[in-house]
């Protein structure tokens, strides 16, 4: 190999390659301004900045009629498990009994028969939904000319409509995206119907039980004709709790799929 060829190889091929490798990278990317994404990183890439308004919110693909980037619920502190509670309200129907005594003054230790209502708050618990926290960033700098993200990438955008080359996603609208579980089938929906804009979806719990009364001895015989006294026993109740939401805060965001 001649000296000239070596010089050419070094100057024209290896030197530019070395500069390209060791020089600071351009840090640009092809995503358009307004792209919103999560990162498994402690800082947003260059050209991106933190999306402060998303702090403590789950992203929910924007539903028809919703306003992009509007939020619902109180921001969640990462690591906290949102709790909620319901009211439990029902009644028991106390059977009556009679005594041969005269009703009236002055022994007030017996209970009266009839319907007895009660209401009590249930314990606050978590719905048990699992999440992982990631860094929220939004694209601020214009895209470069590098190749676009792969086809079928689902990306959030703070813009009013999907950028060129992207199409609004319909089947995820109003649903919380869950990372595909092990052995899961991607793209399947489950749970309730899609949320309406800013809807706080509620749920209830059925409940049932029994109340045992405490007996009270009296020095009188049972029989005709003073009634309305509560008969000692065990009385069932059933009901459905008040409705409450699970406390998951979310930000509605336009989601688009790369064509």
């Amino acid at each position, binding site marked *: 190999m001649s000296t000239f060829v070596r*010089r050419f190889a070094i100057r024209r091929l*290896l030197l530019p390659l070395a500069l390209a*490798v060791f020089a600071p*990278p*351009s840090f640009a990317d*092809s*995503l358009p301004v307004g792209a919103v994404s*999560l*990162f*498994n*990183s402690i800082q947003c*890439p*260059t050209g991106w900045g933190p*999306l402060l308004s998303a*702090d403590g919110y789950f992203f929910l693909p924007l539903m028809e009629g919703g306003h992009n980037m509007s939020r619902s619920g109180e921001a*969640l502190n*990462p690591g906290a498990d949102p709790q909620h509670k319901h009211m*439990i309200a029902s009644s028991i129907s106390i059977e009556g*009994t009679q*005594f041969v005594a005269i*009703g009236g003054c002055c022994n*007030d*230790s*017996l*209970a009266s028969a009839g319907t007895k209502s009660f209401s*009590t708050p249930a314990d*606050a618990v978590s719905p048990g*939904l*699992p999440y*992982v*926290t*990631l860094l929220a960033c939004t694209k601020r700098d214009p895209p470069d000319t*590098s*190749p676009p993200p792969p086809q079928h990438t689902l990306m959030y955008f703070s813009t009013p409509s999907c950028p060129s080359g992207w199409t609004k996603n319909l089947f995820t609208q109003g649903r*919380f*995206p869950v990372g*595909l*579980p*092990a052995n*899961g089938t*991607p*793209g399947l*929906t*489950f749970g*309730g*119907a*899609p949320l309406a804009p800013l809807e706080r979806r509620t*749920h209830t*719990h059925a*409940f049932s039980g029994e*109340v045992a*009364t405490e*007996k*009270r001895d*009296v*020095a*009188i015989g049972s029989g005709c004709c003073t009634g309305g006294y*509560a008969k*000692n026993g065990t009385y069932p109740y059933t009901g459905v709790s008040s409705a409450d939401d699970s406390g998951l805060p979310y*930000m509605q965001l336009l989601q688009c799929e790369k064509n």
Partner: protein
Amino acid sequence: MIGSHSVRHGRIAFFALLPVATIAMASSAAAQDGAPARMVTFFNAAACPTGWNPVSIASGRLLLASTDPAKVGVNVNAPLGNLEDRTHKHGYSGTVALSYKSISAGDSCCNPSAAHTRDNPLSGTTNNAPSGLPFVQLLVCERAASNPTSK
């Protein structure tokens, strides 16, 4: 110095840069898109594209946004199974008041048929129920850190 007239130096430069060139070409092959490194996003697909990897910590989990770097990776609760609509239940306790009804008889032996007026305790647990929230399970992938836009 690179570009020396010396053949020996040229050989040194060539062999020194050969591994770098190999790595650069390999990275270029992996980075077939312009997404920044460590981006985590969903795909409407069955497998992660070239240059992207499945995110095991996100499997069966919702993704919570944060701007606090110290919170990245923080997670709660066990992951969901395939199409699992996670349920929960609540304990409760309270009382039901039995108001009195007066009688002209003493409290003593031996008729036990009546109930005492008092606040009767009650307690229990509700049935299990899901949150009612709607979900969609999607492939989630992370852009490999070999992308030149790595932080």
